[in-house]
């Protein structure tokens, strides 16, 4: 830790109140999960296409029944169940304080924000994992543009919501 002391003196401890290690370890695991799938199957997994491809099970709308969605919908369900299971393994078994965790963010923020996330990620061809991780990892100009855009709008929106006094 002594190597970090000069960094702490610069005030980085206030920028990272929860430390850096959990973030770095978590990020490396996210990348590793995507890498395992990629190297064994050639598939570049994003989390948001699941929304559209899963809708093809229950909707006749043409857009959801495109070949790429119908032929990938089964493994996308498997991938998503894996995500749920992996998070459960951490939350209920491996975490320092195992047990269910519940957000204090109000339901209307979750529903309304989720709605816009659903529209935006599908319109913009990807989300934080597709563009933000796999696209950036591919050095794709399209993904870098999408990430820069959503970061700017997310920061502006979150600051505005906080300034309006909405908490949590």
């Amino acid at each position, binding site marked *: 830790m002594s190597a970090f002391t000069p960094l702490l003196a610069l005030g980085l401890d206030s920028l990272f109140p929860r430390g850096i290690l959990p973030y770095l370890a978590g990020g490396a695991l996210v990348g590793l999960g995507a890498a395992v799938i990629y190297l064994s199957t050639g598939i570049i997994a994003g989390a948001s296409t699941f929304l559209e491809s899963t809708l093809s099970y229950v909707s006749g709308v043409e857009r959801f029944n495109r070949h790429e969605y119908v032929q990938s919908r089964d493994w996308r369900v498997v991938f998503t169940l*894996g995500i749920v299971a992996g998070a459960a393994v951490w939350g209920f078994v491996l975490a320092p304080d195992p047990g269910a965790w519940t957000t204090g963010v109000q339901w209307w923020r979750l529903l309304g924000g989720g709605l816009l*996330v*659903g529209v*935006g990620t599908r319109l913009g061809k990807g989300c934080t994992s597709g563009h933000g991780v796999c696209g*950036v990892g591919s050095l794709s100009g*399209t993904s870098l543009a999408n990430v820069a855009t959503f970061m700017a709008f997310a920061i502006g929106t979150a600051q505005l919501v906080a300034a309006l006094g909405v908490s949590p």
Partner: protein
Amino acid sequence: MSERESALFAPVVFAGGLVFGLGLAVSGMAKPEVVLDFLQFEDLGLLFVMGGAAVVTGLAFFVGTTFLERAPLTGRAYTRRVKAMDRNVVLGGAVFGVGWGISGICPGAAYASVGIGNLPVLWAVAGMFLGAYAQGYARSRLAG
């Protein structure tokens, strides 16, 4: 599934998802509070989540496209994730960003949040399906 796949295909996709979800939980991204703290500049740790993940996938893409021929379980060629640029990429990014800033939730993190027992996040999952349905319905209409 139309591709001729190995019996290992589904288990490997599940295992990859498991590690992916584990990472989202370890990093705190499955908690909207942590994401909102990042967006309000109170905790910049999320930079290391996306950065760390992108470095690891970037390495995998480099190894796959440079040294390997075809993926063992599917016979697919290795490619990079490069999508065409158009107005929707920026427009969609803006809408996504506003939604992320309001809720602190993005798709992968929302599924992971279900896994750590956060049942209120089902509101966000329902919202995401509604949003995806609305845009798909609208675009099918516009195209037809």
